[in-house]
């Protein structure tokens, strides 16, 4: 099994670390590769889009490198029903629709999840928070929200977690979108969300 982590910007190493640890715990043989260029995602069984700045990551994945983009490769992976996970900025990029901040910055989206997201839904960094929430199929997880987006409209997706009036985790077939950062929880040993994701692949 090969999992690619889109490595153009953001907390890439944290996802690589969390995914490797989750693989070990599940006894899965495989490799986790961070990639900045087209050519790796298309040869992978799953892809993760990390947290970071959605405006920056969008520009870099849609940038043409030798006639190819990482974005196209992610979309074709989705078409062949492979597993995809986006956290925070990654969630924004997976969405079909964005709010006025997404429009104002002309951020291109992958449009793979039938949802609308609102950027910085909870406020600025000062308002960033962590809180235990109920995650369907996993149980209670400590969710870390950093200038986080929220899902404000849902179409044909399954809601996995909510915080207050917002949906903060959804799944559409094998595509997972989270407003928070499970990769940061791996620092203190919790890899349950990554394990959940890896189980979608097999």
């Amino acid at each position: 099994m090969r999992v690619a982590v889109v490595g153009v910007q953001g907390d890439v190493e944290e996802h690589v670390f969390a995914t490797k640890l989750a693989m070990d715990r599940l006894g899965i043989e495989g490799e986790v590769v961070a990639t900045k260029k087209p050519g790796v995602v298309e040869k992978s069984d799953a892809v993760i889009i990390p947290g970071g700045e959605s405006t920056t990551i969008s520009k870099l994945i849609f940038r043409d490198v030798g006639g190819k983009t990482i974005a196209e490769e992610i979309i074709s992976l989705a078409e062949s029903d492979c597993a995809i996970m986006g956290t925070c900025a990654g969630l924004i990029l997976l969405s079909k629709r964005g709010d006025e901040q997404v429009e104002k910055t002309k951020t291109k989206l992958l449009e793979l999840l039938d949802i609308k997201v609102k950027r910085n839904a909870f406020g600025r960094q000062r308002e960033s928070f962590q809180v235990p929430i109920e995650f369907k199929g996993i149980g209670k997880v400590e969710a870390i929200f950093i200038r986080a987006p929220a899902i404000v409209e849902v179409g044909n997706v399954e809601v996995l977690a909510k915080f207050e009036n917002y949906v903060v985790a959804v799944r559409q077939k094998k595509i997972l979108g989270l407003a928070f950062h499970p990769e940061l929880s791996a620092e203190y040993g919790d890899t349950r969300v990554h394990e959940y994701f890896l189980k979608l692949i097999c």
Partner: protein
Amino acid sequence: MVELEKLRFGTDLIKRGFAKMQKGGVIMDVTNAEQAQIAEDAGAVAVMALHKVPADIRASGGVARMADPKKIQEIMDAVTIPVMAKCRIGHEAEARALEAIGVDMIDESEVLTPADVFFHIDKHKFTVPFVCGARSLGEAVRRIWEGAAMIRTKGEAGTGNVVEAVRHMRLINRAIEEITSMPKEVLYSVAEKFAESYCRLYNSIREELGVSNNLTPDTIVYEEYTFGEIVSGIYDILLEIRELGRLPVVNFSAGGIATPADAAFMMRLGADGVFVGSGIFKSSNPPEYARAIVEAVRHYDEPEIVAEVSKGLGEAMIGMGSIVERLQERGV
């Protein structure tokens, strides 16, 4: 379902997490909404709101202070990416004001005129995360102990000369290597050495009073912390560095980065990202410079791309070959 009583703000995880989201990115100094817009369009991960870029601070002289909050607010309204702002070293009231405006990260910066020659701000007491400059491992570790969520090399801001940023990155990296092979007792003596900086106020008072310096581990030397607590806090950070083989927080490079190749060089030396101060808006073509530096940071290990984005960029900032006033010596 949700345990609201367990809702927490401003934890180390959240502060350091914010800094991690900036990795692989370029943070650009801007002085108005229009420049901030150029930075966001070019793919900056954040902007640093200032009243003057460092090169102009150097040129104008005088006391450099926190930027006008109205200016910072205008920049915050103009862009969707995080906005950082600088306060003077030790100036807790400026930092509180910046936190009140809602800036996303505070840079307690040597580029502004220091307000306190003894101490830096106790950053654990803030909800908003801080970045601080360092030119050595000791400075980096002290700032982390005080609660900094991100470290950046000090370099020499406003010079367009990368030499000091390189010096600081090399000094920090090599010191980390040394530490990884140190036995615990030696590491503890390093912690004691690093903690001495916090005793300067106490020492100078004892000296002025002409009484013997009987500093003990129980002596309170900084805020409410005793010397012993500081040593043990610093020792814990050193142990963590020894285990990780790197700083436990994100380490950016700053201070003199003027070209795409400079930015790529700092990344090759192990920086997690770069701050570009005067380099962009003192160049002849800021939008192109900004875009080129973002690309160079992304592709730092691909020389052909760094070459490509460097083509026909126009004049870089003029820069200074010899440095008259060394800002890096502020705040150790």
